[in-house]
């Protein structure tokens, strides 16, 4: 009941000295604004990474070949061709819970049609590949098991490649030459956009992996397989099965390192997002420091205010204010300062994150969470930094306070 009256008193005290009030709030405004903006940048980056990882498909498991070590140096996964066609067949045959698996062979090659030609990423894949990547066809059909078995010269074009070679014409049924070998276009992929690295994923040609190996790369081993589990719950089990099977097939003894790597999409996404999480925390804590500086500013001004208003405190005590009434009055004043600063800061933070995404082209994401936290944090700062001055005021001796000049 006294709260409302106390709020009015605090409001009046703050209005009395508008410039000082504004300057005091500035620390909190900048602090909260910075936290909101910085966290929005971090969150934006994280959301972008997550969206791109989701583009890999669902419940995807990547099997990368060899982590060979030469003279003690690990050369990184995918460098040694330790995955064979037999491995692929074995996984396909023996691992339960799979909805699909496809080898992946990559090469860059010149692709031509008519007068147009382009250096394009050629991907040798199996029939399951487009399903695993959840990459629908815009037109035409997928190639068949028969095409794979017989290394048929059929191709599916990415959107960009199709546009480069055929313009607006329908490419299905036409012929493209890859390294001079003619391939019949059977399908056209829907557009997928940019990859995590900023590359155009649509500048691609899919061919059966057998065709790619026989006619384009000449290799006999694979760098990676893409597999897909039937459900998210099955992913770890499938991962284990594949690992066990490959260790057995590659005759890797107990305690020896794998010459392959089985990674789930979950793991990839965790690695990627953990980087951006570190960034978010880093940016946020730098901004958080300015919040604390803002809090110290509030404490400073509240201390000045208590000294200035010693007589007023004396009068209030004399007419019957209890210590807690005075404490509450100054605490509410400090919290009002920090909360008002917090609210303005939230506005400023949202505004500047908008500006950043417009001006710099960064993806930003202002989360409700960060607003709520910033709001609660600025209230907490008011209480924390306002408490000492308020306590000082509340414990004043009424006689001394009345006599204070």
């Amino acid at each position, binding site marked *: 009941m006294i709260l409302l009256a106390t709020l009015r008193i605090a409001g009046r005290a703050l209005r009395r000295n508008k410039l000082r009030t504004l300057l005091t709030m500035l620390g909190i405004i900048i602090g909260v604004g910075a936290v909101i903006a910085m966290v929005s940048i971090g969150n934006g980056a994280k959301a972008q990474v997550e969206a791109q990882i989701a583009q890999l498909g669902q419940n995807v498991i990547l099997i990368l070949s060899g982590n060979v070590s030469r003279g003690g140096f690990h050369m990184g996964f995918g460098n040694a061709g330790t995955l064979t066609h037999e491995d692929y067949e074995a996984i396909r045959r023996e691992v339960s819970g799979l909805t699909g698996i496809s080898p992946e062979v990559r090469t860059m090659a010149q692709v031509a049609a008519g007068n147009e030609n382009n250096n394009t990423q050629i991907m040798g894949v199996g029939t399951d590949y487009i399903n695993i990547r959840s990459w629908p066809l815009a037109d035409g059909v997928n190639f068949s098991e028969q095409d794979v078995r017989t290394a048929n010269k059929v191709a599916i074009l990415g959107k960009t490649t199709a546009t480069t070679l055929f313009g607006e014409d329908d490419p299905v049924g036409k012929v493209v030459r890859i390294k001079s070998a003619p391939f019949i276009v059977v399908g056209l992929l829907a557009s997928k956009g940019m990859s995590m690295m900023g590359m155009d994923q649509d500048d691609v040609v899919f061919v059966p992996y057998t065709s790619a190996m026989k006619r384009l790369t000449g290799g006999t081993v694979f760098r990676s397989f893409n597999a897909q589990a039937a459900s998210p719950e099955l992913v770890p089990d499938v991962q284990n099965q594949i690992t066990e099977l490959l260790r057995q097939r590659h005759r890797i003894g107990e305690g020896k390192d794998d010459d392959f790597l089985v990674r789930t999409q979950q793991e990839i996404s965790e690695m990627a997002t953990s980087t951006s999480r570190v960034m978010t925390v880093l940016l946020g804590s730098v901004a958080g420091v300015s919040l604390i500086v803002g809090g110290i500013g509030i404490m400073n001004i509240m201390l000045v205010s208590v000294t200035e208003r010693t007589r007023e405190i*004396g009068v209030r005590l004399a007419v019957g204010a*209890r210590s807690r009434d005075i404490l509450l009055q100054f605490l509410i004043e400090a919290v009002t300062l920090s909360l008002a600063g917090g609210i303005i800061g939230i506005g400023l933070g949202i505004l500047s994150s908008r500006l950043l995404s417009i001006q710099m082209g960064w993806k930003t994401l202002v989360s409700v969470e960060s607003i709520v936290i910033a709001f609660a944090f600025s209230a907490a700062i008011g209480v924390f930094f306002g408490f000492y001055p308020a306590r000082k005021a509340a414990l004043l001796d009424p*006689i001394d306070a009345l006599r204070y000049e």
Partner: protein
Amino acid sequence: MDTQPVIKLENFSKTYVTGEVEVHAVRGVSLAIMPGEFVAIMGASGSGKSTMMNTIGCLDRPTSGRYLLDGVDVGELDRDELAELRNHKIGFVFQGFNLLSRTSALENVELPLLYSRNRVGSRHQRERALKSLELVGLGTRAEHHPNQLSGGQQQRVAIARALVNGPKVLVADEPTGNLDSLTSVEIMGIFQELNRQGMTVVMVTHELDIARYTQRNVVMRDGRIVSDQRVPNRLEAAAELEKIKREQQAVQLAP
């Protein structure tokens, strides 16, 4: 009921310790003030009258001895209970008025109601504050801020503030110290009028002529009461006011 003193000091002492020196501000004073009395406590500075005042006003507690305010032993109360007592039973008037600046007269008068334990609604609060202001003749100045009021008017606002919670005792600390003689007499007139209506008034002053408006003078020296007597020919503020005004007129007419 009326035979019970409203203020009763029994062998009251107050000792301050400043550093290693003990200062005996008041040394064993006994004093009883009955309801409806108008008492001036007088003395030079250092006589202990301010300490008496602070104790009677429940701003401080006795070091030894007892102080009973309206039958309540003040020495046994804690800080908050003292605050409550000040709120309900004491009305303060200070030498420097001590009004809150940039706050209207009405809101200044409302201040004690704000801290009252049995709080009333804000409309009722305003009514009571306004009634209190009317009592001191400032009903029309309710919205004025202290800097828009003369010294005498400010002191009247302070009196209205002291009265608003219906106190047992009005405690005034040099209430005319900052006022010219005419305004001083006006203020004394208000005290006399309140006293006539039954209010107990205890006033600290070092001005003899001001003390002559009261009924009883208690003179202190070195922490002890040296005299305590009825005022023989008490001045009537209304009559004095007339006299001063006539004199001033005469002065103006003279040249």
